[in-house]
């Protein structure tokens, strides 16, 4: 009898325990799911909070900028407002020409060196290559004002060239170099090994294979990197701020002082004339559209590369 009781009792508690466990686990699940729901909401809230200032920025840019942009905005030189004509701000032709000139000279300086160094890093193995890889990655993250200091010391001061478009281009070229090097190396290394082997098997010399097979195949990737580098350089203010001198004429000459769109934004944002502060939004809008077109082109090139490979 006592045996039987002993047997029954655990059975009974077991039942209660199961109930208890079930209840607890249901409660725990409800709590866990509630936490999960709260965190999902918090994360989505973070997404919203992140979007608000950026949406506001784009809204302000288009609303305030669009009204500033007309034909004279692109074709006239800037004028300083006076008390008699407080709205006479003129256009920004010198800034646009300056930006384009700076970008072209910087590209001429940076692209050949950058692509060759990138190919060197991908094609050879040496201590120098390993070191340069780390150097280019570190330089890619260096504050852009340092490129301005470098260009000032070397070009403006030591070589005594003076404030000029070429000094600004040099600073921008140093800024672009690591980006071009890194993306070229990736593009060259991503060329399928079978292509190289096919070339070598046909008896082509290694450098012929590199020049005739690998580089053309990697071209899309290289171009993407170059466009990204240019789109970064176009919007940079700090490096050119110190060295281009801010010229008020339309000049393509490399040894003339020039202005640039980012520089004009920086200078005129602090202007005491409301009309000049309003005009800055127009310059910013043109600059942002310019940068967006470049970045989108790079993305489209990159996705084209993907399709070709697939």
């Amino acid at each position, binding site marked *: 009898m006592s045996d039987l009781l002993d047997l029954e009792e655990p059975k009974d508690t077991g039942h209660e325990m199961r109930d208890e466990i079930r209840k607890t686990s249901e409660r725990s*699940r409800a709590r*866990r799911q509630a936490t999960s729901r709260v*965190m*999902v909401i918090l994360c989505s809230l*973070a*997404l919203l909070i*992140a979007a608000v*200032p950026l949406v506001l920025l784009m809204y*302000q*840019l288009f609303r305030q900028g669009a009204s500033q942009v007309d034909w004279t905005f692109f074709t006239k030189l800037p004028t300083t407002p006076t008390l008699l004509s407080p709205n006479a701000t003129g256009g920004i032709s010198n800034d646009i020409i300056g930006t384009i000139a700076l970008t072209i000279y910087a590209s001429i300086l940076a692209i050949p060196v950058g692509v*060759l*160094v990138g190919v060197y890093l*991908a094609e*050879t*193995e040496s201590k120098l290559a390993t070191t*340069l890889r*780390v150097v280019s990655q570190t*330089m*890619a*993250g*260096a*504050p852009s*004002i*340092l490129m301005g200091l470098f260009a000032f*010391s070397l070009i403006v*001061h*030591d070589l005594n060239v003076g404030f000029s478009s070429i000094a600004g281009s040099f600073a921008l070229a140093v800024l672009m*170099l690591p*980006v071009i090097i890194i993306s070229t*190396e*990736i593009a*060259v*290394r991503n060329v399928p090994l079978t292509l190289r082997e096919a070339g070598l098997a046909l008896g082509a*010399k*290694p*450098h012929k*294979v590199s020049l005739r097979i*690998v580089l053309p195949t990697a071209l899309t990737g290289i171009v993407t*990197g170059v466009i*990204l580098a240019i*789109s*970064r350089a*176009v*919007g940079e*203010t*700090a490096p050119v*701020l*110190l060295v281009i001198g801010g010229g008020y004429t339309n000049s393509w000459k490399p040894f003339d002082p020039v202005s640039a769109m*980012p520089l004009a*934004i920086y200078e005129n*944002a*602090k202007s005491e004339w409301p009309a000049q*502060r309003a005009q*800055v*939004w127009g310059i*910013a809008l043109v600059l*942002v559209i310019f*940068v*967006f077109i470049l*970045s989108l082109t790079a993305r489209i090139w990159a996705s084209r590369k993907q399709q070709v490979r697939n």
Partner: protein
Amino acid sequence: MSNAAAVDLLEHEEMEEGPVSSSISRSWYHYVLIAAALLFTAISLGFVGTIFWSSWPTWIHHGVTLLTGKGWTSPNGPFGGLAMITGTLETSLIALVIAVIIGLGTSISIVFFIPRRFRTIVATLVELLAAIPSVVYGLWGLLVIAPWMQTTVNPWLNSWPFAKEIFGNSGQEFGTSLLLASIVLGIMILPTFVAISREVIAVVPQDLMEASLSLGATRWQMIREVVLPTAKIGLFGATFLALARATGETVAVALVAGSVANVQFHLLYPGTSIAAWIATEFGESQGNEVSALMALGVILMVLNVCLALISRSLVSRQRRALARV
């Protein structure tokens, strides 16, 4: 640094070292490549060397006061860098806190909660936002946010108890302050942080997440217990890259921080940062001050290289850890 370069850098880490083709030595092509590599070596040595060389007179004459001194008098000194160094650290750390808290939530939402077909669009938008030139953020901060801070936020902050002691009095004329600089910086580095942390989170292996879900974990438990620990080191890497970008940011801070070289811990007062001070002072500087600004550049360079090396080693550690999984 541009976000595209940062993402490339992540991809760059994956490369195994070593040549992909057999030797191309002893051809003209090889010599051209070596010449380019040597030229780049010269440029990078020149980059460090020239700035350091130009700053040398200041290091000799002022030495450690550049790091610890207060007050900056043009053109002959004293040149104290403490205000700029504290300003840089304050603004970039606050910006980092803003960007990491909001950015982490944003990346998690993009990877897990947004419908699949919107993901590419959102990712593209984030990269476009990261490409907006920093001067545009500065312009927006100066012309839109500063007046708003001045009329709305600062008085509201000051209405709290003890707020005047912590933040300082809000009576600044233009609304430019260290707090505004931190906020604008935070908004600026947010797309950079999101672009990288999104990639880091997206490459967490699917089977780890499925294993966790199959054991009855809720979505959040899966994220907290599996995704975040797996992605931890990569997320630290993204954090340091964002911090490196914030410390090096120049024109946005120069526009919204107020350009006053005071050691300032009350955030509603104007201040400056190393990079911003170089930008604002360089135009009118001559002689000794140029060299002193170059010395500030050296400090900035050292700071940046440290951050870059830390983030590099973290990101590559993450790669190796994931390769083992």
